[in-house]
């Protein structure tokens, strides 16, 4: 959004937006009381932090955390399939899914390394648990449908995120992953519906661009994936948009 006049004052970096608004609200409400004579030894008002709100940081750090979260999600999904494959999964499928799991684990760990102490979960005691209750993971069809959803979403997420990075090295790093996700997506789509590797729901035409990948902004991606994070709500409000 370039129309800055309609924007609220940006929250300070690092402070979740909702928490910031709560602080702002509390200050406005309490300022009168403070002026009315509370003495200086009174404790500051305690602002409850929503434990279920995960607000990704600003800038490239936030963007990388966003992709880290998606890679964690994909890796967790494939790990679940590898650990407890549906009864009708073909023997060959198990090899495919082990490959897909390995790749996503490698992506996840590489991004975690790149983020180091800036990873959103660097100080978390336990990793975020993902919620797959909306998926049918007891049948081959259900697993393939879910895999397609994750992979197509991943491709759209990377293509949408790469325009938002500011350093060439980061762009190169993400591009190396992006095309592998596209290979995955085509593969899973072909397994599910032969010949759908570049279906017109993901490779789209809209003048002046033709036959290009569907792109989604971080906000669109998180909105689509929100069920997998519940009860955690992920906010992309601080991420770059241009």
């Amino acid at each position, binding site marked *: 959004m370039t129309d800055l006049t309609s924007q609220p004052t940006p929250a300070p970096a690092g402070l979740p937006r909702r928490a910031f608004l709560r602080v702002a609200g509390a200050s406005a409400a309490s300022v009168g009381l403070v002026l009315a004579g509370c003495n200086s030894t009174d404790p500051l008002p305690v602002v409850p932090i929503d434990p279920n709100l995960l607000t990704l940081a600003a800038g490239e750090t936030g963007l990388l955390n966003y992709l880290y979260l998606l890679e964690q999600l994909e890796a967790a999904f494939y790990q679940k399939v590898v650990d407890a494959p549906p009864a009708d999964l073909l023997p060959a499928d198990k090899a495919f899914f082990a490959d897909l799991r390995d790749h996503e684990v490698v992506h996840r760990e590489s991004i975690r390394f790149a983020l180091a102490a800036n990873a959103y979960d660097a100080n978390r005691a336990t990793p975020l648990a993902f919620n797959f209750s909306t998926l049918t993971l007891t049948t081959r069809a259900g697993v393939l449908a879910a895999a397609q959803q994750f992979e197509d979403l991943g491709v759209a997420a990377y293509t949408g995120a790469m325009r938002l990075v500011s350093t060439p090295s980061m762009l190169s790093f993400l591009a190396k992953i992006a095309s*592998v996700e596209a290979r995955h997506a085509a593969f899973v789509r072909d397994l599910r519906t032969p010949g759908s590797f570049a279906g017109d729901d993901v490779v789209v035409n809209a003048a002046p661009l033709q036959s290009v990948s569907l792109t989604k902004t971080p906000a669109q991606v998180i909105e689509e994936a929100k069920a997998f994070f519940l009860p955690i709500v992920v906010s992309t409000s601080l991420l770059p948009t241009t």
Partner: protein
Amino acid sequence: MDLLKIFSEIEKIDGEVYERFDTRRRVFRHMAGLGKTITAATMPVMLGAMFNKAYGQTTGLSADIKNTLNLALQLEYLEYYYYDAGLKTPGLIPTADVPAVTIMRDDELGHINALKGVLGADAFPDPTLAAFDYTAGGKLAPFAAAAGYYATAQSLEDTGVRAYKGGAPKLMANKDILTAALNIHSVEARHSSHIRMMRRTLAGSTNGGDIAGGTNNANPKSWVSLRENGGPLPAVTAPIYGPGTTTDFPGEDNVTQATVNVQNTTTYPTVPGVTFTDALKAAAVAEAFDEPLDDLAVKAIARNFRSAVGVGKGLFV
């Protein structure tokens, strides 16, 4: 003409389309003011002007951007005429695969049109089929049988993926062009994935492919695995999976990302009954990343597929 529908269609592939037109609100305020004077005849002109402002870059493109896009355009011609020639060769492509090859041919044409649209008058002119020699000087026989045809198709697509990736940092000054190129790039990766599956199907393979594509790269995975044993015909295809001309462009077997050897640090999950050896890890780590290739290396590969006519037209120089 349903203007809102047009915007909605564009928004599907380009979430920021409204920002390109200043802001959503402003563009519609602008429209509203013009409402009475817009007619069926003037609308296309007005739309054209808006798109020119948003994407049209006929002037002001840097030499880096022009060169990068023109190399991509030449590669798209290489691919388009390859698929087109295959589809026009009777009995070459198995009937069941004709729809997929047609999709890929049409996608390449779409990419050509997109790149031409961005480059405008600076676009490399259509070199025509005569400019290409898909036998690579007699070393390949791509139009004799499907297996050989798909092997070369894989080589061309994988070259394209590495070329776009190598060029991407040079496009960063123009985010719209960067996005267009990267979105084409991921479609090429989808194509390569499908071609690899067609190669396995044709060979009767059901194991999903071998590490590095197995012997003679005859059983490729759907993703690039190590250096693919030099590809289908190493004399021509080895450089497609090898390193570029500087150390910034390692081969496809690279396991160092973000300055760390990922193979050694990745926390592999424990799976009952599976032991991850270093060799397995190296393959998985290398497969997880597609490596970029610099323009000099890409051109050297592409020159294999240039006929005398292509030389005359200055292809891949």
